[in-house]
């Protein structure tokens, strides 16, 4: 296909209007040319002989009449071994390599290959000569860090093929052929590198399943109260400073999955730096290797070009789907989806589309829905399972959840972890609101225990509200105890000290164990002389339990601390 040419007819921020001749494809990549710079852009609207392009770079210096080269290709990413551990920008340029080339600052118009070309991989063939295969089937594998990275029939090959040649075991670069396929009419050479357009989901699997298996995050309020499943979706809306990013960072460390993809979308660069610099030093408890080896960072922070922000979430989810095709469990963390929605809004404004609520485009909802739809647990053609779980933060204007992005997201996700300003002001971290949040997925805590805890939280809150009207003196001691119990659950279980090595991450078995103890406190019929006595008891019990939370589970100290709690409880429950 010969690509078309065009000329700039108008410039408004990062949007160009371009007059073109020849065919142009919606969403194809084009390059306005400025002296020796070619700036990457994407076609986002076509009207007659004019195309509107969003430029992924600063447009300073472009002129009306300047040349534009179309490519005939959709915005795509490179897939193959060597993605893990990398830090990319929204268009999959490796940032450390860019820094080597350009120094301190990002230079527009510089694009680098995502996968290292010189590196050799030990290829082990799996498919035999003559085997019948189709897109997504395994041809062989290489070892990528701790994983067996499968080399698959390229996803864009339609129909059925026969393997004519397969490479012998040995080391190959990603561009060397490892197989030749034949569909009767023509032959296709396969390398370890393939490309895929980011806005299309990769669906080379047999079927999608219902997500049921819990994804443990070691954050108690999530795993016990508002769980997430592999292949599920969840969102974390919250005002600024309530703890969205910290929550995502904790999850990226502790989540029980194979691969984590961090999409830092339109927020602070400093937060990504923490991950980039810390992860290589942190150990993944599951494998003993560094956390970086299971992580890919796609980062398009707030001062990087806005259009690439929109691309970054698609780049990230495409990488996630790629690893899912290998039968791995992948977690995609997007922070913040609102910035991506705002990028859509900026562009929609420049296109002078009819605006919806708060000037967001009318198609916002469907765009958000189809993004989260790319999550899922699937059965691959050979029967193995793989999953992509998506967790996205939302940054609502003014912290008010009644706004288009939060509302559109709530419609499509399976769990809602709503952060509250009140709780973060009171330093009750993680500041997930225990009464407003919800999850449609099953928890690791037995249903009856969980129900009681939830009821206690609700009732305790009611008592607290009532006390604000009638005062402590007007409250019955039974009610007062309910209130104290709810505060106790909050202090020792819902709240978790992220910066304490032990308390910061609670594995599933410890959560179950703790919850048993908690349950016995909630069930206990306690007797106190007066409210002051009750308060004093709960203050002491809270402190003892918090101390317990900070002790490693397989120690004698742990058992001793637990015995202390049981004894304290026995002293106020004479009949038990």
């Amino acid at each position: 296909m010969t690509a078309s040419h065009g000329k700039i007819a108008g410039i408004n921020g990062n949007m160009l209007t371009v007059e073109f001749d020849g065919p142009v494809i919606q969403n194809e990549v084009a390059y306005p040319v400025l002296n020796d710079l070619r700036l990457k852009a994407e076609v986002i609207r076509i009207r007659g002989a004019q195309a509107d392009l969003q430029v992924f770079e600063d447009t300073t210096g472009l002129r009306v009449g300047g040349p534009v080269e179309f490519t005939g290709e959709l915005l795509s990413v490179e897939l193959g071994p060597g993605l893990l551990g990398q830090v990319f920008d929204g268009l999959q340029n490796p940032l450390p390599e860019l820094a080597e080339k350009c120094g301190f600052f990002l230079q527009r118009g510089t694009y680098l290959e995502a996968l290292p070309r010189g590196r050799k991989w030990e290829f082990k063939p799996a498919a035999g000569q003559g085997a019948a295969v189709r897109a997504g089937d395994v041809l062989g594998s290489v070892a990528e860090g701790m994983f067996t990275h499968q080399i698959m029939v390229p996803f864009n090959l339609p129909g059925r093929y026969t393997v004519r040649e397969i490479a012998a075991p040995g080391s190959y670069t990603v561009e060397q052929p490892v197989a030749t396929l034949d569909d009767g009419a023509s032959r296709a050479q396969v390398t370890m590198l393939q490309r895929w357009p980011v806005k299309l989901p990769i669906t080379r699997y047999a079927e999608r399943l219902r997500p049921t298996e819990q994804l443990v995050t070691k954050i108690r309020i999530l795993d016990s109260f508002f769980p997430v499943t592999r292949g599920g979706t969840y969102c974390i809306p919250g005002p600024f400073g309530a703890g969205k990013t910290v929550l995502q960072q904790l999850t990226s460390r502790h989540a029980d999955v194979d691969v984590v993809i961090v999409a830092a979308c339109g927020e602070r660069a400093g937060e990504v730096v923490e991950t980039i610099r810390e992860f290589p030093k942190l150990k993944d408890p599951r494998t003993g290797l560094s956390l970086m080896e299971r992580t890919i960072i796609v980062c398009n922070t707030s001062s990087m070009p806005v259009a690439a922000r929109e691309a970054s979430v698609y780049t990230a989810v495409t990488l996630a789907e790629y690893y899912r095709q290998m039968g791995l469990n992948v977690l995609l963390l997007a922070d913040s989806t609102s910035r991506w929605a705002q990028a859509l809004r900026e562009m929609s404004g420049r296109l002078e589309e009819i605006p919806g609520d708060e000037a967001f485009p009318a198609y916002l909802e469907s765009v958000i829905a189809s993004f989260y739809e790319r999550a899922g647990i699937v059965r691959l053609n050979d029967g193995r399972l793989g999953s992509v779980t998506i967790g996205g933060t939302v940054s609502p204007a003014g912290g008010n959840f009644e706004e288009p992005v939060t509302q559109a997201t709530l419609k499509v996700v399976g769990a809602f972890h709503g952060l509250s300003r009140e709780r973060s002001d009171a330093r009750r971290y993680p500041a997930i609101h225990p009464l407003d949040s919800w999850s449609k997925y099953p928890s690791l805590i037995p249903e009856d225990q969980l129900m009681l805890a939830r009821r206690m939280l609700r009732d305790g809150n009611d008592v607290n509200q009532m006390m604000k009207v009638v005062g402590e003196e007007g409250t019955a001691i039974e009610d007062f105890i309910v209130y104290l119990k709810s505060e106790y659950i909050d202090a020792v279980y819902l709240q978790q000290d992220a910066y304490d090595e032990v308390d910061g991450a609670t594995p599933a078995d410890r959560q179950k164990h703790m919850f048993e103890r908690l349950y016995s406190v909630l069930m206990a019929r306690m007797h106190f002389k007066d409210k002051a006595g009750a308060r004093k008891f709960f203050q002491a019990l809270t402190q003892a339990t918090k101390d317990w939370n900070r002790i490693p589970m397989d120690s004698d100290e742990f058992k001793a601390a637990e015995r202390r709690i049981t004894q304290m409880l026995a002293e106020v429950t004479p009949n038990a």
Partner: protein
Amino acid sequence: MRRIYNRVERIAGNVISVRAQNVSYRELAQVASGRGVSLTQVIRLQGDMVSLQVFEGARGIATNAEVRFLGHPMRTAFSSALLGRVFTGSGAPRDRGPVLDENLTDIGGPSVNPAKRIIPRRMIRTGIPMIDVFNTLVESQKLPVFSVAGEPYNPLLARIAMQAEVDIIILGGMGLKHDDYLYFRDTLEENGALSRSILFIHTAADPTVECLMVPDISLAVAERFALQGKRVLVLLTDMTNFADALKEIAITMEQIPSNRGYPGDLYSQLAARYEKAVDFDGAGSITTLAATTMPGDDVTHPVPDNTGYITEGQFYLRNGRIEPFGSLSRLKQLVNGKTRADHRTIMNSMIQLYASYRESLEKMSMGFRMSDWDRKLIKYGERFEKEMMDLNVNIPLEKALDLGWIIMADCFEPAETGIPTRMIEQFWPKK
């Protein structure tokens, strides 16, 4: 190539349009008016129609005004001769010193590659317990001071600047009252800091849109010094005026507003400036403190709201004090683990207790009977406000931590504070 035009097609707000060829996007042009020559910048190109925003305001521009394109975007001079000088937002001298035009560098340049940033690690000591103990300021942090008009945010900025150990101070004034400008200048002078300071000043008397360039020019100069290994502190006051100038231009350009008239890209515009704060891998740093006044004391107003989502926390100034609620330093945990073993404990416990104090205060105002616990909290809260929150308190971090233990021990039994036993054993003052 023709670079001079004599026909203005359209004048609306502070935007003028001319028909011209071969103009580049964001190029500067000069336009002559009765008041002299104003600087303008290309903000839209449509065929041969060029829209220019006029920094000094379009008032007085005639349809036959001369428009001369300069062929380059906004630049600033850079050299150590800038030190001790005062300029306007466009970089023209505001003092009696000479015009500087050596070593020109573009302003509003590209962002730093995240791979070239390092994790900030140096605390900036201010002597203010509400900052040092509870919301520690960190070198390379970007942090606004949210306040209503009338709060002493400029004195607070000046005080931090004088206390901080930095090499260079850059002040970017936007809509600054002339008195405040003089206050800054005199304070710098009295403290012998003027010779390592540069001032870019737009005052309330200058046309609004002229303040648009102040953050970019201040930060471009800061960036160059930081690349030479200098630790630079940038003070921007008041960023709400900057946002309002953006709004004015957006409305003139008939952009669809997203929220209370502000353009949909307000977040990106503010972020482009705030993200210039940086700790370079192998060079210096930029720390940015920015006053952001909140219209109607409303933190959900689009300017503070978008700012809060961008910056690394905020100091919330109210009734002359830094409020513990609403104030935040997101970088504090990068440094407060290394100051003193009890720093985090004091930080968390004292605030949680202060939150309980506020509840008791509310109960008291409703006329409810005070329990023993309430009375303890009230005693605690009053002491906390007087001995920790008051901005007149000026003590080093370590003294403030000691004071924290003393106040708590005077008011509570150890178990009532929720502090882990092992910290109590180590730090609780023995009676």
